[in-house]
């Protein structure tokens, strides 16, 4: 019974793989978007022009209502990797480490660290660490020193981000101990975990707690001091600055526009990305050359 079922499952999987072998360009584009409030989405819609001023002069997000809305950087990648007709966007640092999807050239420019540094790749934003006013907790200050040091920025660069501090000084451990709570953006969390691992190797008495919840939660958490340091993958809002939030960029991250490996399209213009994400263009043949 079990064997038969297993065979059935395998057969189904094989069948779907076969059905996908030939890519049909007349297919509807399965648009994958982040949820409302996501830092990555906020940066993406601003940089691609999906967000425009509406008649009342307010910024309006025109993301295609039929998109598949998922809540997490990696969930976008999973969704896109399993659907050849899909398009998505995600933090470049996460995409670089992943071989299940490919990133699309925008206006002919490959999303690489060099191209972000020389500003030819158009979709990039800073990763921020947020605190309430200047950091005072010695542990948090020391961690921040580490992040901005040579070693810290190397970790940032290894993760595929563009370091902000190219000539950083060496970090020496201050031998502190205690618990450091960092929380916020799901895009920043992966690099933060690597930073935390590197930091605790140098400071074995310190425990770093990385909560991946979301950019706004990161800022709110930093303000109400749930987190000693908050993470945000976007610039601070005016209301947040008024409440005392202070942001420090630790690296610049590109947002890669991605699709599945077996999708033949690998070049789009920024305008085409906008059209896809506003639902003005809905099939692949409209954007394939």
């Amino acid at each position, binding site marked *: 019974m079990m064997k038969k*079922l297993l065979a059935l*499952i395998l057969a189904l999987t094989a069948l779907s793989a076969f059905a996908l072998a030939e890519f049909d360009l007349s297919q509807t584009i399965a648009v994958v978007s982040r949820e409302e409030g996501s830092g990555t989405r906020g940066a993406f819609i601003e940089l691609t022009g999906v967000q425009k001023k509406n008649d009342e002069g307010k910024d309006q997000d025109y993301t295609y209502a039929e998109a598949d809305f998922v809540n997490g950087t*990696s*969930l976008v990648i999973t969704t896109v990797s399993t659907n050849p007709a899909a398009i998505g966007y995600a933090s470049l640092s996460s995409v670089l480490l992943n071989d299940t999807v490919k990133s699309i050239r925008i206006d002919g420019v490959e999303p690489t660290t060099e191209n972000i540094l020389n500003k030819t790749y158009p979709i990039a934003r800073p990763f921020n660490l947020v605190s309430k006013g200047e950091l005072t907790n010695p542990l948090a200050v020391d961690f921040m020193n580490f992040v901005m040091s040579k070693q810290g920025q190397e970790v940032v660069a290894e993760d595929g981000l563009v370091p902000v501090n190219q000539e950083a000084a060496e970090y020496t451990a201050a031998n502190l101990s205690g618990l450091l709570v960092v929380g916020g953006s799901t895009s920043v969390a992966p690099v933060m975990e690597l930073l935390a691992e590197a930091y605790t190797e140098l400071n074995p008495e310190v425990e770093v707690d990385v*909560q*991946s919840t979301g950019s706004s939660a990161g800022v709110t958490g930093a303000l109400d001091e749930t987190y000693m340091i908050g993470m945000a993958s976007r610039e601070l809002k005016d209301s947040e600055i008024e409440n005392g939030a202070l942001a420090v960029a630790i690296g610049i991250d590109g947002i890669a526009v991605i699709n599945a490996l077996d999708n033949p399209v690998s070049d789009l213009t920024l305008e085409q990305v906008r059209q896809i994400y506003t639902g003005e263009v809905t099939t692949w043949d409209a954007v394939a050359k």
Partner: protein
Amino acid sequence: MTNQALSPARPVHQVPTRHRLRLGSRILKALCWLAGLITMSSLVLIVVYVLARGIPHLKPSMFAVKYNSRNVSMLHAIINTITMTGLALMFSVPVGVMGGIYLAEYAKPGSRLVRMIRVTAETLAGIPSIVYALFGQLAFVITLKMGISILSGALTLAIMTLPLVLRQTEESLLSVPMSYREGSFGLGAGKLRTTLRIVLPPATLGILASVLLSIGRISGETAALIYTSGTATRIASLGKSGRTLSVHLYQLQQESRYTDEAFAVAVVLLLIVIIMNALSSFIAGKLSKKG
């Protein structure tokens, strides 16, 4: 339908012939078997699929003491699940059992208070976990300043599992024959002594079954925990944040690099549920033999 059959106004010749009756019933019976088959095959499909994709990825490195992004260990999540379960049950079991004792042994059946307790217990059992998540965050994490911690999560889950223990205790106590109590009273024992020494022992198995169900429920809970006990990857003490197994599965599922590991975690979760279920049906079997 029964009313129609009894109604004398109905002319005799309109009663369906026996043959058609039989055919209709047979079709319905066939539908029953079909439905049973669908139920069973969906279970088998889910379990077999998860096991088949997860078991090959259960590696010893996934049980390393310290989690890092290379070994994707789930040991911390397993230990957090145990802490979480123990702590939640430490609150819900005593309260639930004592409450159940009150309902079964002390309360006047049908009194206003008892009705209210029943209705609220039912309400608690019906509240969606996402509402518990909101409540846990607002009450424990923010208002009581417990922060995102195992303790906040456990208190939230304690309230969630309370009705389960309460109802099961009450039912188990009520199923103890009246003669036990009368005998004990006859020998001059007081109410409390009778309850604790005579009535409670035969009901223990039933209560244990509810505890096992609660364990299953707690280890499977995700939504209520993400924002109360958080997603930190470490073996957490009570005041700190740590993810349980199901939260771990949810987080891995979001991290596209870890699909295989996610399946492995799903296998462990399934095993916990299967073991808890087997134990509780074993107990149920014992109970029914007794009865």
